[in-house]
């Protein structure tokens, strides 16, 4: 009997060795460093076919053709420079032009980022055309624990060629360690200033060097409402802060709760409250003060920050204003919090969250029917209508030609076009056309952003990690759960700011 156990163990061990061997051989990605060498022979063997194909490619110019089809339906081709060698060359994107001319066939660019599952599929399908046209293989690896693992990978010298940072603050850490190739070394400065607003470029700049290249963003200053019921009740979309307050009071006197708020998010509990703080910082004080606050020059305990928090805390701390009352705020999962809005009759009427929240809405609910969206109005007309955004910045760790080509590709609207069509992302590149958006919702949001008088990035993502994804989250949670008063919380956040 004992012998049988040993036999079984040995068999299982052998089986897994065999499986591993098969798996390893079938998947060159299993060993990033070792694979290219092992692959070389096959590459060489394939070369003739590729070379044979090349003439046809040059003759037919499939990329040109693909492009030529579309503009006929909508607009001139001038805008999409990222889709062809000629277009790329015309604005000085030489790496990209070389790639389209087939000079980088068979090269591999590794990428690492935080988006997984559906977003990963959208990304991969959106770069498919580029991969087919250039022969560059973009190997994206998504990780749920990106923020934790990327640090270890940088430390160990195992960083991917391009990193997709959802937080520029995190990128700055590695940029200061000299581990990131400045974006301006890869993409010509003239093209960057032509295709990006200066404020985006500033947000990718660390200590005077522009490291990051912005690829996509999501909009935060949005309020969602149950459109059908909203119209049936005769409510109107508010365009000013006064109108919003009148609407809130109206809803309360009609016997309902206006807002659905939830800030629970596991280890990240509290982040929606930091978004609200940023929204009201932008709406109750100047942009200079906002920037100073994000940079750590204006302390949390200053009257400006306190006033911003109190402006929305007046809503949050009023049991009649929030679905489930104030205590429910910290215990409701942010993704579940808008659900009561879709009940019949609606449990709440307003929900402020970024555009990604639609993926949490009940299946089958449609924009324009079941829900609508409006811009969270400015509080003080003096500060205009600011827009809060967050987004993903690309940073390269290598300057190989194919990495350069991919970075240049991402700097064009074409680099995000497939994702825009698939939905779930917004592009900030100037050559992005509104009709590229696959859904009316995102086109509408892009239009709202375009109407804004100023755009600012999510402050907590720019602050040092100890604050932006630490004490700020925790402090807001403590305050709204009633564990501490506002002054104590703000003093604690100030104390946690890393000393230089």
């Amino acid at each position: 009997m004992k012998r049988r156990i040993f036999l079984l163990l040995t068999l299982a061990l052998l089986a897994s060795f065999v499986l591993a061997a098969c798996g390893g051989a079938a998947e060159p990605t299993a060993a990033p460093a070792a694979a290219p060498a092992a692959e070389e022979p096959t590459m060489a063997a394939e070369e003739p076919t590729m070379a044979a194909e090349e003439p046809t490619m040059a003759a037919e110019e499939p990329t040109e053709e693909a492009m030529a089809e579309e503009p006929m339906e909508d607009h001139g081709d001038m805008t999409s420079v990222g889709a062809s060698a000629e277009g790329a060359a015309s604005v000085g994107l030489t790496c990209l032009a070389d790639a389209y001319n087939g000079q980088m066939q068979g090269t591999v660019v590794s990428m690492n980022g935080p988006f997984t599952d559906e977003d990963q599929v959208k990304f991969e399908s959106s770069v498919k055309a580029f991969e087919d046209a250039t022969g560059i293989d973009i190997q994206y690896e998504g990780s749920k624990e990106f923020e934790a693992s990327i640090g270890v990978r940088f430390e160990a010298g195992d960083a991917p060629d391009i990193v997709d940072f959802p937080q520029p603050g995190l990128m700055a850490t590695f940029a200061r360690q000299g581990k990131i190739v400045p974006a301006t070394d890869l993409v010509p400065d003239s093209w960057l200033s032509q295709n990006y607003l200066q404020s985006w470029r500033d947000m990718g700049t660390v200590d005077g060097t522009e490291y990051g290249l912005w690829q996509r963003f999501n909009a935060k200053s949005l309020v969602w409402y149950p459109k059908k019921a909203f119209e049936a009740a005769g409510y109107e979309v508010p365009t000013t802060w006064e109108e919003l307050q009148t609407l809130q009071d109206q809803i309360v006197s009609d016997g309902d709760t206006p807002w659905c708020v939830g800030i629970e998010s596991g280890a990240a509990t509290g982040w929606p409250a930091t978004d609200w703080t940023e929204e009201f910082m932008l709406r109750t004080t100047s942009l200079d003060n906002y920037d100073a606050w994000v940079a750590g020059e204006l302390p949390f305990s200053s009257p400006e920050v306190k006033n911003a928090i109190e402006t929305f805390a007046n809503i949050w701390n009023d049991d009649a204003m929030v679905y489930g009352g104030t205590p429910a705020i910290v215990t409701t999962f942010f993704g579940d919090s808008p659900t009561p809005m879709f009940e019949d009759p609606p449990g709440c009427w307003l929900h402020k969250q970024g555009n990604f929240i639609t993926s949490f809405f009940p299946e089958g609910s449609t924009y324009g029917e079941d829900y609508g969206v409006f811009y969270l109005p400015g509080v003080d007309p003096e500060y205009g209508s600011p827009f809060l955004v967050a987004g993903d910045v690309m940073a390269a760790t290598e300057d190989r030609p194919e990495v350069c080509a991919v970075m240049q590709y991402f700097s064009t609207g074409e680099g995000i076009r497939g994702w825009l069509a698939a939905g779930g992302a917004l592009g900030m590149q100037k050559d992005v056309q509104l009709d590229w958006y696959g859904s009316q919702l995102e086109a509408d949001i892009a239009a709202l952003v375009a109407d804004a008088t100023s755009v600012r990035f999510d402050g907590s993502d720019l602050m040092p990690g100890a604050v932006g994804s630490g004490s700020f989250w925790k402090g807001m949670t403590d305050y709204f759960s009633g564990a501490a008063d506002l002054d104590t919380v703000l003093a604690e956040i100030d104390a946690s700011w890393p000393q230089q």
Partner: protein
Amino acid sequence: MTAQTATKKKRRISWGAIFVNVVLVLVVLAWSIPTFGLLVSSFRSRFDIQTSGWWTIFPHQEWVTVAEFTPGEEVDRDGVMTFEGVSGTFEELRAGIKDGSTQVIWIGNKRIGKVVVQQKEWTAGNHDFTLENYQTVLGGKTFQIQQPDGSTLTVQGDNFVNAFLNSLIVSIPATVIPILIAAFAAYGFAWMRFPGRKVLFIIVVALLVVPLQIALVPILKLYVGLDLNGTFLGIWLAHTGFGLPLATYLLFNYISTLPREILESAFIDGASHFTIFMRLVLPLSVPALASFAIFQFLWVWNDYLIALIFIGSKPDVQVLTQRIAEMVGSRGNDWQVLTAGAFISMLVPLIVFFSLQRFFVRGLMAGSVKG
């Protein structure tokens, strides 16, 4: 007299037994009820999970609507209103005015509300079960991706099968290798005399308290240099290294308690250390080996961090824990698949546990009392 003491004694024993049993039952309930709830939830749709508890599958009393009407414009919503012979203000009606097993309740707000008459009735429970979660987990999700040219591309997401195999590929060698090495080491420490034996053993025991997190960066550096990064061999070695101190210590405690006479008589008969190890020590320490195998297998199977660092999360090499975490989506929007995913990933550890459990209890005590 003697009979009295006997009953007294008996009673005392039975009180103790009752106490123990009650505690055990409570512990079992505390562990199994949430697991049962998870099992029920894994068969329910996301909206059901969100809007009603899993216990609503049991028969229970519920308010059932028997009549419903919309109050007209003429009703003064701010004053006292009368419906179906029941009158009250808006606030009172909103909360529901109860009369025995009937209640009149206002649903919705003053503008678009309706008045509903409800009766409390027994319902069989909510039995809207679905296999959707399991289908998603086992078959992979289907994504409809709209493309720039207006066409829709259907992409089949990764399924569990590959990740399941990867987990087996990682777990089995990462369990067997450390046990083999540790058994050799334990025998050496227990029965061979060589200089520095005590010092070496203390070092091994001291390694027990070193947290593996501090070793991640140096080992990854080493692996990058040796091209071991992202390979299964790399993660086998990593798990072996992290598992060895405990394995050696545990097996040493067991092997050193084997009767000296058996080993000595084998020596006298001319057996070498290797023969003794293979013929005597290994078969005799099966309980300890099996119990450690369970520990190590569960640890490796459930591991997320080491796999994330050393083999990464590419679809072709990622293990089950990573696959499950990824299925939830970038922002955790598909959390309902966790329920089914958890049960599927539980299967293998359960099989391992039950097939080795008869060694387990014996093995737990193995080495706990050193002879």
